[in-house]
């Protein structure tokens, strides 16, 4: 996966910095709650939403079951329609293919449609290294690129920025990259969009090569689809002479009719709209209309490894709508950068470690734990990815990988082993509770009474400080429930 996030610390440490960023907290809380409300409204008006979700799940599962067949069919359909198909095992191969195509056309710049796959492989970095400028044309991607920033959301990569910040970025940076922003630019959304439009127009008209991803690739017809809101995609997909699309292998759909389900699920889940403003479809080359040289790069980059895991593979159903990010209480407070990947939020927490390989680095291994397992993500997922199930499964994989890698058990390994030993016998559990009850009585001088009469401890040092710095600690009951039951014959002797 992308190296752009290299150096991001483990999730709890990255989150700590984000939690202290008041501007970020405010921007995210406002933006996610707005999208959540919009999504709730437009999903609520579809009576058969659950049936649509089930259909989406079934289509994607069928694709994953027969992936090699559908990919070969897609290749045949694309080739027959005049496109050139390339296969890329990893980021390096995919980048080399795209750089090579751009070089053959002596391009020193390309225009880009917003694409997660090209973010994932850091194509822009590879192009830059080859002396080719890649211009992002999606408004939010443009903001991120001009600000020398990293994306923090799948749909709205600049969600962590507010319009005042965007105005400053435009005024400061646009002139260096092309047409400057007007000096009297305000932070009015319409003015900001107009400045971006002016800035991008000359790039659209000049570029010979465009690069896109695809939301869907239909095996039956060889049709690629891009769904967008701003029309920048339509410009990139129609004006330049050469079009290169980098497509993850899981994006394939069996038939054109499957778009019927997907194009209902995606916009409502994603932007909270009934239908997105621009849906572009193209099937290879159409003589005299649009790009006359069309390439499709089919990208693996870890996906077949994900496919090999029967529980984890459901992550490949993802259609990148970002509904899970918008409902996630962890994402809302920590932002996308804390996840150290172009795929943040709940889906990132299950996709990133799988694409990179569980056990490959401590940052990726911290991601499956970056969730309270509240389940809000599963509830909104249009293709019914049971994200909490995969998170728990991956935690198991992380623990196993660490056991394999080191003979010395970690503190956590020992604590869990000890807890398992104690709690697998009621005699040992009872003894531990008695000891805790005595401890609680000994600590009575340190406790105070919380509303309702429970004894609690305030801030305590040591390993419990993570809990007790902000939360009072309940003191073990002097008499456990099992002791009470035994002493009173289940309460019958008490009265």
């Amino acid at each position: 996966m992308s190296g752009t996030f290299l150096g991001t610390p483990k999730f709890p440490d990255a989150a700590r910095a984000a939690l202290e960023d008041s501007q970020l907290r405010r921007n995210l809380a406002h933006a996610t709650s707005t999208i959540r409300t919009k999504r709730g409204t437009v999903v609520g008006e579809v009576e058969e939403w659950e049936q649509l979700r089930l259909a989406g799940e079934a289509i994607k599962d069928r694709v994953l079951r027969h992936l090699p067949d559908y990919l070969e069919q897609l290749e045949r359909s694309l080739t027959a329609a005049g496109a050139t198909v390339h296969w890329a095992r990893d980021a390096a191969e995919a980048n080399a293919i795209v750089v090579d195509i751009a070089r053959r056309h002596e391009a020193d710049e390309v225009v880009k449609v917003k694409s997660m796959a090209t973010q994932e492989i850091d194509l822009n970095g590879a192009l830059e290294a080859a002396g080719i400028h890649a211009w992002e044309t999606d408004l939010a991607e443009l903001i991120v690129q001009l600000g020398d920033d990293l994306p923090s959301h799948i749909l709205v990569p600049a969600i962590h920025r507010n319009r005042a910040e965007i105005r400053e970025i435009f005024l400061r940076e646009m002139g260096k990259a092309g047409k400057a922003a007007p000096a009297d630019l305000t932070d009015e959304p319409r003015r900001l969009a107009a400045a971006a439009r002016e800035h991008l127009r000359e790039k659209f008209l000049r570029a010979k090569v465009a690069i896109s991803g695809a939301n869907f690739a239909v095996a039956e017809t060889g049709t690629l689809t891009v769904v967008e809101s701003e029309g920048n995609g339509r410009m990139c997909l129609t004006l330049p002479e050469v079009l290169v699309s980098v497509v993850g292998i899981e994006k394939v759909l069996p038939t054109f009719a499957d778009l019927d389900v997907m194009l209902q699920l995606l916009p409502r889940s994603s932007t909270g709209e009934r239908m997105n403003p621009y849906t572009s479809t193209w099937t290879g080359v159409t003589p005299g209309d649009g790009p006359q040289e069309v390439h499709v790069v089919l990208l693996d980059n870890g996906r077949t490894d994900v496919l090999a895991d029967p529980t984890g593979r459901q992550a490949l159903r993802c259609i990148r709508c970002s509904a899970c990010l918008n409902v996630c209480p962890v994402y809302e407070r920590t932002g996308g950068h804390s996840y150290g990947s172009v795929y943040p939020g709940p889906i990132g927490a299950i996709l990133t470690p799988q694409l990179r390989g569980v056990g490959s680095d401590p940052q990726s291994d911290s991601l499956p734990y970056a969730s309270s397992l509240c389940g809000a993500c599963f509830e909104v997922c249009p293709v019914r990815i049971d994200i909490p199930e995969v998170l728990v499964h991956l935690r198991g994989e992380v623990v196993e990988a660490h056991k394999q890698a080191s003979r010395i058990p970690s503190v956590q390994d020992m604590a869990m082993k000890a807890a398992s030993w104690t709690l697998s016998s009621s005699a040992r559990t009872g003894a531990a509770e008695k000891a805790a009850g005595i401890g609680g009585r000994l600590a009575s001088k340190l406790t105070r009474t919380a509303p309702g009469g429970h004894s609690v401890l305030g801030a305590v040092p040591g390993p419990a400080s993570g809990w007790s710095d902000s939360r009072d600690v309940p003191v073990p009951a002097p008499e456990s429930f099992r002791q009470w039951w035994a002493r009173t014959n289940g309460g019958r002797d008490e009265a």
Partner: protein
Amino acid sequence: MTRVGLMVTCINDALFPDTGKAVVTLLRRLGVDVEFPAAQTCCGQPMVNTGYFAEAVPLVRNHLEAFAGCDAIIAPSGSCAGSVRHQHGLVAERSGDPGLVRAVEGAPPVYELTEYLVDVLGVTDVGAYFPHRVTYHPTCHSLRMLGVGDRPTRLLRAVRGLTLLDLPGAAECCGFGGTFAMKNSETSIAMGNDKARHVRGTGAEVLVAGDNSCLMHVGGLLSRQRSGVRVMHLAEILAQTEPVIEGPGRAADERSVGTAEVAR
């Protein structure tokens, strides 16, 4: 005769025994002679959710042995009921022991308390009395893993004297999340503080929920903030009844007489 086993849960056993006692009181009042299989310990959720599937196996076996012979299991916890219902099968599958898989499949059904009251006993008015202003937090596992829906609020609305206040953002997680509260404590606290803020905004004196684990977290924040709001498990409210006051005149009447005398 139907044998109903109380799965009190380890956290209630050690930290909140009053919740277990309240369940016993409540069920007996409703005519259910609940048993407490003493061999029980913990459902294993802490291990599973931390990724220690192998370490959860002895706990799953212990659960199966402890409740063997019961026709139904009642747990005053959405989270622990959810763990037995959804995670024991996963633990058994990963253990590679087909015998354990079959045993889990054949285990007695587990009900979260409100499911048992509303679905099995068919009651919403359990004869409770609690003259206080309360707000209810639907815990994530009861709401989304089990889908208890409006059962808890139907039970609460039938409690005499109780005023139920709407909690803004009720469906949002409080931030407890088991080991999440320790591993990602600062994010957990940020979530919990927002929950506590909403609770305080309702003006309720009691925050009620069906999981003491979540209440331990939000309650810990509320008491640290000296908010004056207390937390209670739903069972403890449902177990309370109107005190029977002896004598010809009721205490409240006597008090008012006394006040009148002073005024004269």
